[in-house]
């Protein structure tokens, strides 16, 4: 026991080390890669335009304005002080754009993850207890098909049907612009705008949660203590949720944490389809305009957030279930 816990600590430390190292790797990449760039913003901006012709002096002036000649240490310090430079396209600080978009992304992703985890969990538990019934089989089939549906496709289809064809939901944005609304009306309005992107994400995340819960439940059900609980004459609901499901919860919690960690990256495409003003749309527009500081900041900060989430998960994980200290591999 002593030995295994020491081994576990060692393993955890090495994992934490790996995460820190990869965070550093990402920061270094985001510092290094742009400087290797052959073309730059000035060329990208003006080479395609026919109305603007720059003289050599003007061009070098622009270049000097936009160049980022700093050492790596300076880059790190600026990063920590939230000084992420100015957007080329909007001329506002990148951090401002970032923090304007972040709440919308968080709202979308946290609610999508919670909804998908809840529904997936309940469906998984119920399916596992009705093994080999028609209910289970059709649910598993649905889950498998949904697992094969990429977010791009669900997003586009939902947008086409419910927003553009039926007109039930708005096609873009997170709130009605310039509308004078009371707080309650505003909440409803936000919910209305949230529905479609949320649905796309829940459909994307549900099957993974469902299939995972079902598998771990099936493993739990075959344990003797479930038979004991049945023999005691406990109600089905009680057995399912108080006895069995609790022990099948762990993989789902892990997945939930990992999913939450990848949320920032996960919704780029869906946000773009529904023109939801989160980080995804910000990144998309930045890519279109070759707005380098913005791309750099979003990529970097969201990957650091991912790594921080995983590290946090790693730290709290052992307290969730001491049995599986070693099982957490990823």
């Amino acid at each position: 026991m002593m030995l295994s816990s020491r081994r576990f600590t060692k393993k955890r430390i090495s994992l934490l080390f790996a995460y820190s190292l990869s965070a550093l790797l990402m920061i270094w990449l985001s510092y290094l890669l742009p400087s290797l760039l052959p073309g730059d913003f000035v060329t990208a901006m003006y080479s395609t335009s026919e109305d603007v012709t720059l003289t050599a002096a003007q061009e070098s002036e622009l270049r000097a304005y936009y160049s980022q000649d700093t050492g790596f240490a300076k880059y790190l310090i600026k990063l920590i002080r939230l000084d992420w430079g100015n957007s080329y396209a909007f001329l506002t600080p990148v951090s401002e754009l970032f923090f304007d978009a972040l709440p919308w992304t968080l709202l979308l992703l946290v609610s999508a993850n919670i909804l998908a985890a809840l529904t997936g969990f309940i469906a998984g538990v119920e399916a596992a207890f009705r093994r080999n019934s028609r209910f289970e089989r059709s649910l598993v089939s649905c889950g498998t098909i949904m697992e094969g549906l990429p977010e791009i496709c669900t997003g586009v289809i939902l947008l086409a049907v419910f927003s553009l064809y039926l007109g039930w939901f708005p096609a873009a944005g997170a709130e009605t612009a310039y509308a004078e609304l009371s707080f309650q009306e505003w909440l409803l309005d936000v919910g209305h705008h949230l529905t479609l992107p949320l649905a796309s994400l829940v459909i994307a995340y549900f099957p993974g949660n469902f299939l995972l819960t079902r598998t771990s439940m099936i493993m739990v059900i075959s344990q003797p203590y479930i038979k004991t609980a049945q023999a005691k004459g406990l109600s089905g609901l009680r057995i399912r949720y108080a006895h069995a499901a609790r022990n099948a919860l762990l993989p789902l919690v892990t997945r939930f944490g990992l999913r939450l960690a990848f949320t920032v990256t996960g919704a780029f495409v869906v946000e773009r389809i529904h023109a939801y003003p989160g980080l995804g749309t910000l990144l998309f527009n930045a890519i279109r305009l070759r707005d380098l500081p913005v791309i750099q900041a979003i990529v970097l900060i969201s990957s650091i957030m991912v790594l921080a989430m995983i590290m946090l998960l790693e730290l709290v994980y052992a307290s969730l279930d001491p049995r599986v200290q070693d099982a957490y591999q990823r």
Partner: protein
Amino acid sequence: MHINAKKKMLRDPWLLTGGILFFFFATASIFGSAICPHDPSAMEFTPLSSPCAVHPLGVNDCGQDILAGLICAVRNTVLFGLTCAAVSLCIGVLIGLTAGWFGGIIDMLFMRLADVLLAVPAIMVLILISALFQPPPLTLAVILALLIWPTISKAIRAQTLIVRESPHVRAAVQMGAGNSYIIFRHLLPELFPLYLIGFSGKCRMAMFMEASLAFMGLIDPGRKSLGMMIHYALKYYYLDVWWNWLLPPVLCLSLLIMTVTFIVISLEKMLDPRLRENFGESAV
């Protein structure tokens, strides 16, 4: 045991569906351009014209035949997925076997490297690289492969640790077999099922990422791809291009991802030892 698994495989409806779809896509990407008479990149037709006998799916905004583009896009996506999966499988298998067989410092080094790579968000690196350098898509596939091999190699390593203790491998060592002989003659073929799972899993991931990157406009616009078709068609939604321009790539992409998903899920069910143990056990 072996025959039993094969029989079970043939009866699995998911694997069957996946196989049929796979066959369909393979045929379409190999022979598709022979059937469709248009050049996918030729801009010579009336832009935005509706479907007719000559253009079964109509013409896009640049005056290109949509069906030809679709066939080309499917082929590109499949090629991207296969390239990435093949490269990451090769790296993953080699490193997994080496780490598992030799152990010690080699194992430690490789596995720590794998941990670091596992933590790096691959899509972010891809976004950064393709936004900055716009490398050719197949280079992108290889870069992606360099980032995602660790899961394969971890599974291979774990299984190698089990197989290396088995009697026939020990016997081979006793008889003086060299390291490379054991790795290539014993371990490599024995772990075959894991390769199938790893390969199809990575293929799915790569196709998904290719579509997302193309949709975001990060892959060369001159190259046909499903993500980009969706992206452009979405701009013209008000022209009722739903069923001839937007839906076909959406459908193709879903079916492609489904094909691989079905294969992955049924292979895992069949071959993953942790899941196999619970096969046939009755529920409460």
